[in-house]
């Protein structure tokens, strides 16, 4: 499995992706530095908007989407998936290796900057803890879901963006029912509840539900990806 994982990882880590998304990661830390040094601001409020408004809402989902949808998606699209699939390797290993490879890049590129930003902003350990757990859960959930999406659907990036922009940014912020199945609302709830004294996102749920939804989504996604690999047609 490590050979699979290393191959998939090397395929994902292209220069263009790393540079462009790395710049955004750096931006998160820069904003946190500004929060720290700027006088006369409500620092906790500003720090939270960096962690929640930029980090968990924008940076983590987009970075996860770009790498997870490409993990199996690129190979499926150009036909090289056959060199991984027509091997005596259990399908769940392939699914996990792909998700693991994508996560290996998302963690330093998205989760770590958010945590560093929370630490740099200097408003207390609770925000750092909230940032860590929230961003981590978000990265895992988005990675698992978009990995499967990349395998099954041809224009996975476009569909993933549609999901992020329409469902998570618009619908789930308005409709309570939709919020319950939104990874964004769940993970932002986790961040806010751990950090305490910060405003909860609209349509926030209880902590147990907020943890359950993304974890269940991740698990179901991995199972479905494995089944797709077992059944699917490989070029």
């Amino acid at each position, binding site marked *: 499995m490590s050979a699979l994982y290393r191959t998939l990882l090397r395929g994902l880590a292209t220069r*263009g*992706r790393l540079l*462009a998304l790395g710049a*955004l990661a750096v*931006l998160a830390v820069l*904003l946190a530095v*500004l*929060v720290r040094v*700027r006088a*006369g*601001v*409500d620092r906790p*409020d*500003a*720090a939270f*908007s*960096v962690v929640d*408004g*930029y980090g968990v*809402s*924008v*940076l983590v989902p*987009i970075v996860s*989407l*770009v790498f997870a*949808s490409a993990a199996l998606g690129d190979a499926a699209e150009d036909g090289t998936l056959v060199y991984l699939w027509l091997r005596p390797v259990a399908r769940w290993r392939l699914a996990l290796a792909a998700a693991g490879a994508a996560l290996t890049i998302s963690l330093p590129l998205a989760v770590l900057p958010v945590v560093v930003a929370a630490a740099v902003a200097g408003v207390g350990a609770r925000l750092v803890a909230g940032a860590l757990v929230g961003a981590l859960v978000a990265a895992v959930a988005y990675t698992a879901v978009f990995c499967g999406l990349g395998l099954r659907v*041809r*224009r*996975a*990036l*476009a*569909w993933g*963006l*549609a999901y*992020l*922009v*329409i469902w998570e*940014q*618009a619908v789930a912020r308005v409709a309570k029912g939709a919020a319950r199945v939104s990874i964004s609302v769940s993970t932002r709830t986790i961040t806010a509840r751990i950090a305490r004294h910060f405003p909860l996102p609209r349509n926030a749920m209880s902590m147990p539900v907020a943890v359950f939804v993304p974890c269940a989504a991740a698990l179901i996604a991995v199972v479905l990806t494995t089944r797709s690999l077992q059944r699917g047609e490989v070029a």
Partner: protein
Amino acid sequence: MTDARILGTGYRTYTGPRLGPRHATWTLARHTFERVMGLRRPARYKVLPILTLVIAYLPAVAFIGAIALLPTRRLGDFVPDVARYYSFVTAALWLFAALAAPEALCPDKRSHVLGLYLASPLTRVSYLAAKAGAVATAVALVTLGPPLVLLAGESLQNAGPRGVGGFMSTLGHALGAGVALAFMFTAISLVIPSLTDRRGFAAAGNVLVLLGSAAVSNILAFGLRFGDGWLLVGLARLPYELTTRIFGRTGLPTPSRTPLPTAGVYLAATAVTAVAAVVTWWRVTRVVVTR
């Protein structure tokens, strides 16, 4: 006894009229528009364009229905007038532009068809004009259509602007706002696709620019109090501020509680559009076509 002729077999040259560069540009624009909207392609390519169109038009249709079915006094502030409609369609508008522009520019580079286009009467500038025109037309379906539909529906039910003067004024504002938004969205959404040949990556980049700039501008203006001007960096807010100014209204709330200066809004909108257009033009005229 009629004369016999042999008309010739094999290769024959074309001796008919040549329609020239303008026709070539128009043909490319039309073809690109069809491609972006998923026309003449399998059903799955139509799903996202149709979905975004539905999201854009649905509120207008719903509001017209509400006006028809509910008594006026109970409508109150529920149904927006045309000026405030634009906030409802922001998500659809951005998604549409984010996906349409990469669809227009990236496949030509990825499949190396750009060289074939440039071997025809098209020049790089006319190529770009055709592409931008097609994307702008598609975007205008979302920026012009729904507000005009809402205006028509409201007016037909006597819930619209008062008098002919009021109607014409609102119509003019709606047309102006729709066209301005179409220009702006087209220019901004073409920048990243001009930099890459991967369609999905360009679309992700566009969405990232939208969401990221919104988050960053809010942090800079509200959180860090660097000044209201930073709100204009937020590309989700700038179009909305622009449309309210065109309709002669005040804009969204700001940290300092004074509205953003109108001149500043116009300047920012023009500057963003111009810079984006220049970057795109510079990239397209420089892209390497042959290997």
